[in-house]
């Protein structure tokens, strides 16, 4: 199982919010947003909740468990 994410999709659904702006709003670096979107880093529950709040989605809409191929 791996954690998939749709942060990038929701970022664009929120009016093409850029990575730097989202990073500033949730209090992390832009590189952390890049790492999350690429699936290289799984955020803590707190950060996932903050991302969900800023993107107007639920945590389940942003992150989901996916079967490994």
């Amino acid at each position, binding site marked *: 199982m791996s954690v998939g994410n749709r942060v990038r999709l929701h970022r664009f659904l929120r009016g093409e919010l850029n990575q730097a702006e989202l990073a500033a709003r949730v*209090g*992390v670096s832009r*590189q*952390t947003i890049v790492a999350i979107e690429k699936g290289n*880093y799984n955020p803590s*529950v707190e*950060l996932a909740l903050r991302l969900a709040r800023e993107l107007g989605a639920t945590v389940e809409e942003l992150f989901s468990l996916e079967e490994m191929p």
Partner: protein
Amino acid sequence: MTRRTLIAIRVAWVAVTALLMATWNEDAWVLLLVLPALGPILREAAPAADLDERQRLVDYRASHWALAVVYLVLFLLFARAWFQLRKEPPIELWLVLLAPLVVRTVLAVVQGFGGRNLAVILGFVCGAFWLAFSTASHGLSPESAIGLGIIAFTALGIRWPRLGGTLLAVAAVACAALLIPVGVRNTGGDWVFVAVMALALPFPLLLAGVGLIASAVRASRPASDEFGDLRRTS
């Protein structure tokens, strides 16, 4: 502290060492041996507030890689000393080998037990040690009150860690101020004996006091993320 402050502390340490080497004694370079131990201590005691959770994770992993590289170089230096030069490695190499091991082991124990628990145990052990030592040599005497005082301060620290920690730290300084001059006078300036004496009581007391205060300060800060905060939750 910020990441820049932590870097500045390390740079200042190197600069002061270089200054001491130039103006006082070339052997002052041994102060550089503290650097591999200083990093992990700073990281645990004062995590950089401007790093987010992923950056702290990266920082933590980088420190493991740095340690691995240091030990690879040490392995080569030890191998060279033993097999090529056929002599014992210098004491400084042993210090470089042991200092990070000791520091990381202590930090792991602190994280596992919890800083406050460990400080309380240390305080009670110091008090009991003093009480047993003074009772065995003089019976119940005014000196026994010092041991009882340490135990009482530690007990206070369980409920009020800042107060108990401050009292223990003050007791440590008072013990050092009383014991070290007496030790110097009685031993004719034998600094090894004085150092052992300082390590036996004032230093652990100071550690217990600082540990209690630090745990209280840490507990008052909100948990920033799941990785950077290793406080016990139960």
